[in-house]
């Protein structure tokens, strides 16, 4: 088909284009109303389902959020409840340990206080008052001698008697004070004992108070969770994320350990299961067997920690009675020790196989073998054996971060699902609006193409309305005149 086939006048492009444009315009003007309707319908057809999907996604997001909240709060409640329980247990132990001897201590304190009181009372005894005749002596002393020798002699005699009595009384008094001082001196050990006991009581009380404060803090969190406050939810979510990240990091470290473990036992495993069997193109059965052993070790570690009630991934194990649980603990531990022993032996075999292979390759090559120092070359062997024995036990502890990842994964996953649902809802809403606006833009664009007939129509309608309004005015005037 020629490119000029559409031309009405093949030799005149401009006229042909003009005629075609006019024809198109006429056709588009005629089809204006149905085309507007079609564009509007398409816009609605696209935007309607998108908006509906956005609404559904938002509703789903709200439901997920509610579920997340419920799960998060329930989990947090359980966790904090357990923590409070543990704190109470600790508190009980402290009370039992520190305050069980409190009645005896109190009795001891009371005894000591009573004794001190008695001694104090003994100290409080005043010396006997001077005899009453001292007043008579004072009266005699006031007697005027008047130079009478007899009186002087009597007075001197009285003075001598009084002086001797005074000396005696003073000596008695001093002796009495000396005795009291001795009693007071004997107070000291009792005072020290009382002081020490009181300090101990004070320390116990302070420790108890600190623990009670911790319980109070946990209880406050528990109450917040119980009330379901946003603050508690936010704190639990943040805690979940932190826990997830930390556990994941530990899991990565454990994966590194598992890789080293795998390297240690993969080669010697081919001595047991053969090196010629393949599971995939490049993956030997011996390598999978090595991995299975590592998985079994990790499982045994998991059961061991479950039996010890450190982790709680299997409620059935946690619900076992103590006798069965202890049995399970010993079985898991025994298997773990056996597997660790097997690994140590495999690590030794690996070293031997590698040495043998090296010797063979050196004998096949023209290069002479290098002499090795005896004890130096045994260090890697010993190291491999040690690693082979230790790594299974280290891997056993993977159960703890695994449990943490599983529990916090619910929170993290829930948050991500929520974010995804909300993002999708937003996207749907945006797309719905874009579709609706696009239909409007297309309607306007359609009118732009047929702007000439539209202007003609507007002008015609304008003149017609003017004429009709003028006619209306004339009719009104006629009616007014009438």
């Amino acid at each position, binding site marked *: 088909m020629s490119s000029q086939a559409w031309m009405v006048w093949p030799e005149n492009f401009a006229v042909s284009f003009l005629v075609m444009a006019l024809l198109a315009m006429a056709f588009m003007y005629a089809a204006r109303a149905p085309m507007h309707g079609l564009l509007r319908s398409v816009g609605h057809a696209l935007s309607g389902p998108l908006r509906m999907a956005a609404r559904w996604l938002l509703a789903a997001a709200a439901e997920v959020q509610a579920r997340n909240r419920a799960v998060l709060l329930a989990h947090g409640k359980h966790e904090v409840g357990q923590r409070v329980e543990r704190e109470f247990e600790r508190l009980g132990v402290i009370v039992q340990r520190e305050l069980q001897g409190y009645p005896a201590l109190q009795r001891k304190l009371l005894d000591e206080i009573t004794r001190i009181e008695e001694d104090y009372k003994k100290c409080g005894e005043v010396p006997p008052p001077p005899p009453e005749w001292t007043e008579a002596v004072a009266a005699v002393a006031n007697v005027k001698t008047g130079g009478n020798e007899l009186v002087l002699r009597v007075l001197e005699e009285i003075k001598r008697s009084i002086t001797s009595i005074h000396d005696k009384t003073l000596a008695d008094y001093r002796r009495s004070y000396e005795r009291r001082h001795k009693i007071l001196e004997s107070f000291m050990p009792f005072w020290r004992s009382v002081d020490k006991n009181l300090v101990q009581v004070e320390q116990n009380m302070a420790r108890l108070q600190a623990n009670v404060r911790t319980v109070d803090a946990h209880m406050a969190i528990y109450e917040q969770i119980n009330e379901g406050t946003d603050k508690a939810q936010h704190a639990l979510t943040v805690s979940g994320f932190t826990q997830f990240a930390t556990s994941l990091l530990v899991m990565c470290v454990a994966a590194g350990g598992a*890789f080293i473990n795998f390297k240690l036992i*993969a080669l010697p495993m081919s001595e047991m299961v053969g090196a010629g069997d393949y599971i995939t193109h490049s993956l030997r059965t011996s390598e999978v067997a090595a991995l299975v052993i590592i998985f079994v070790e990790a499982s045994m570690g998991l059961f061991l920690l479950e039996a010890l009630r450190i982790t709680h991934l299997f409620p059935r194990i946690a619900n076992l009675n103590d006798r069965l649980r202890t049995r399970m603990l010993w079985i898991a531990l025994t298997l773990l020790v056996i597997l660790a022993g097997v690994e140590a032996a495999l690590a030794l075999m690996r070293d031997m196989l590698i040495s043998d292979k090296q010797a063979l390759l050196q004998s096949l090559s023209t290069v002479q073998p290098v002499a090795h120092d005896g004890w130096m070359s045994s260090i890697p062997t010993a190291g491999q054996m040690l690693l082979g024995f230790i790594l299974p036990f280290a891997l056993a502890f993977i159960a703890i971060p695994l449990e943490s990842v599983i529990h916090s994964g619910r929170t993290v996953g829930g948050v991500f699902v929520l974010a995804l649902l909300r993002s999708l809802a937003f996207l749907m809403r945006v797309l719905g609006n874009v579709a609706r606006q696009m239909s409007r833009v297309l309607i306007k664009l359609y009118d732009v193409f047929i702007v000439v007939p539209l202007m003609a129509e507007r002008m015609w309608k304008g003149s017609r309305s003017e004429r009709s309004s003028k006619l209306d005015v004339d009719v009104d005037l006629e009616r007014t005149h009438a």
Partner: protein
Amino acid sequence: MKRRHFLAALPAAVLAATGCVDSRSHTNAVYMLVDTSGTYAQEAGKAQVIINYLLGSLQAGDSLAVARVQSRSFSEKDIVAKATFDSRPSQENAQKRAFRERIENSFRAVSGSRFTDITGGLIQGAEFLNETGAGSKTIIIFSDMQEELDKVTQRDFPITLKGIRVVAVNVVKLKTDNIDPRKYMGRLEAWQKRVETAGAREWRVINNLDRLDAILARG
């Protein structure tokens, strides 16, 4: 043992548990023809280097046979040594040591044969390789690729080398090749055509003995 093996082993453990294992053979089988005819018998020392390389490269479960190319080579008697290496690495190493000793003893006093029956050796090699059932089969021809047959021996018929890689190693140039290199090229082209017509998976010529890794490399 690479890290990706460890990572690949995780899903593979699941596959193994469900019984979805790869039943195809992943072993290699190599049949090496060593030309001991005429002056080429002097090159036997180089052949031992290649055999040592193969012993170092082949893994547990792989098979290796070394045969001489003589006046008539379609015979089991021409196989100097053959072994399928044990799946246990310790036994595998012992087998390789024994194999090397046997080869050393055999090549200590090599007497050159009058004629060179490469085709007979190829047929014998194909038979051995097909019997092993290995996943990858390779015939290494350590020769100048100049076939010389007596008048009685019949070898001008189509042979079958389906699924087998054929690697010609140390194809030395003859005096006549030096005069007219087209003879050398023509000889190699004729062998390539014959081998490919026989259904061989690959034809390769390796003259640089420092690049022996290409012997077992696929494709």
